[in-house]
């Protein structure tokens, strides 16, 4: 109730310059700012725990991934860098695998692969999905219906199956994985974009922009994209988590990037047969996947909490 009251009051603030001065009471120097606030303004005020934890986890993996690009304790393909299947030690902090490769180096390399896959497939999905979504929202009905059906089909189509198809055609590589995950993810982005863009396109300020001579592309760039960006950002975080999970699954099935490109999924598969001898080989990549995906989901949830109009108390 109280939220409603403040929102209502702020919709109708008096112009300070017009407010009558009663009993020497000076007009308020600034308009009432306690009312409804759009996304940007709230952003800097509320920091939910999930946002902080998510950012920390993702930040950690990102830093490790960047470091791994330039330096790892041992070369990623250095078989026999230490004894086989040893546990954690001073030389090998995470132990070694059955070929004697350093697990920590492999894990770091895995972080790099995960980050590359997450970023690149989100870029692919974003470019494809935004284009399809905005087109569907803005064009004639039959094209909208056609695009929606394509998107629904794509969402229903298993990502793994799509990946297998692409791998069969192009061979197993990081690029194939990115293409498959990106195309699958573009369907989700397209759906979210379409719904939100259609909503924004009905807003008065879009009509006002058109009335002042802004062309269609100008309106999309100036008004539609900035207004759907907060929602899309949440979706992108969730998609990035999904991408890392998908890459791990592909590698686990042997459809991911071949060595020397490291991958958490392949580490899991290789450690599967030796789990009883050296459990760290399976536990650590598992933890890495879970922590990263969890971090991205928390980040997405945190952003959603910050942006959700239902939690903003207006409209």
């Amino acid at each position, binding site marked *: 109730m109280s939220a409603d009251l403040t929102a209502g009051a702020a919709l109708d603030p008096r*112009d300070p310059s017009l407010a009558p001065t009663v009993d020497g009471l000076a007009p308020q120097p600034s308009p009432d700012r306690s*009312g409804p606030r759009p996304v940007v303004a709230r952003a800097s005020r509320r920091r939910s725990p999930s946002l902080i934890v998510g950012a920390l986890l993702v930040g950690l993996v990102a830093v490790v991934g960047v470091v791994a690009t330039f330096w790892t304790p041992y070369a990623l393909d250095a078989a026999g860098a230490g004894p086989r299947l040893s546990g954690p030690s001073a030389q090998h902090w995470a132990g070694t695998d059955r070929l004697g490769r350093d697990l920590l180096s492999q894990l770091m390399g895995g972080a790099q692969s995960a980050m590359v896959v997450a970023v690149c497939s989100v870029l692919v999905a974003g470019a494809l999905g935004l284009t399809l979504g905005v087109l569907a929202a803005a064009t004639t009905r039959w094209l909208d219906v056609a695009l929606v059906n394509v998107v629904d089909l794509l969402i229903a189509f298993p990502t793994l199956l799509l990946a297998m198809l692409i791998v069969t055609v192009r061979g197993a590589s990081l690029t194939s994985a990115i293409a498959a995950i990106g195309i699958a993810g573009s369907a989700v982005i397209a759906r979210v974009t379409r719904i939100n863009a259609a909503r924004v396109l009905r807003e008065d*300020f879009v009509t006002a922009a058109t*009335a*002042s*001579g802004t062309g269609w592309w100008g309106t999309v760039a100036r008004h539609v994209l900035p207004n759907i960006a907060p929602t899309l950002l949440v979706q992108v975080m969730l998609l990035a988590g999904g991408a890392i999970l998908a890459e791990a699954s592909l590698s686990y099935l042997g459809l991911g990037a071949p060595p020397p490109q490291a991958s958490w999924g392949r580490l899991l598969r290789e450690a599967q047969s030796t789990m009883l001898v050296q459990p760290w080989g399976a536990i650590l990549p598992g933890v890495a996947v879970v922590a990263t995906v969890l971090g991205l989901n928390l980040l997405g949830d945190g952003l959603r909490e910050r942006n959700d109009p239902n939690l903003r108390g207006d409209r």
Partner: protein
Amino acid sequence: MSLLEVRDLTVRTSGGRTLLDAVSWSVEAGGRLGVIGESGSGKSITALAVLGLLPDGMTATGEVLLDGVDLLALHGRRLDAIRGAQVAMVFQEPLTALDPLMTVGRQIAGPLRLHRGLSRAQAREQAAALCRMVRLDDAERILGSYPWQLSGGQRQRVALAMALACEPRVLLADEPTTALDVTVQAEVLDLLDELVDRTGVTLVFVSHDLPVVARVARDLVVMREGRVVESTTVARALDAPADPYTRQLIEAARAVTRLPFAQEAL
């Protein structure tokens, strides 16, 4: 010759319903036309149709002549070149007519950069001047604000500044004061009155509020159920309304508000 002439403007929905039925009116250069009618009379649809802003599924036939050029026949870039530059519009609800995520300064500068090709700095300077023109003091603060940081009256002044930025020949005002409370409404009306005098812009003022229309308009078009029931002047309508509906409107307005008689109005 009239500057803006609407001739047999008919608007239908895709379902076949007729929203406007052969609406015709015209306004001379420098004229002030009030379009009045109850909700659903089609007065706002008329304003939207003039600039080709009808929602999807509505089609307009007839002619909207700006200096003899039929706006209904224009599309794409040629229509965009007219919108905002030749014919500008102010909307009813200034909160939703301004983009919540863009500073007021950028929004006022938008049409200037678009139609005049001004640089960012030039447009900013011009926007500050426009702020002063619509009596927004403290222009720098206003330009850096977001719409929700301003009051309703300030927002409508911003919308006016935006509409008048490129010195249009015609200003379409669609119930620009309806969403404001009475004191602010009076201020905005006075400002509009003054700006129309000063810039010489031709005004088409759409409203359901007869006293408000009587205050700013000279000519009057009364609409009901998508048709024009009477075309007259404000003075004549107040003195001797010809149509029974117009008479009813005036009597109703006299009964509840401060509608002046003709000699007081102008």
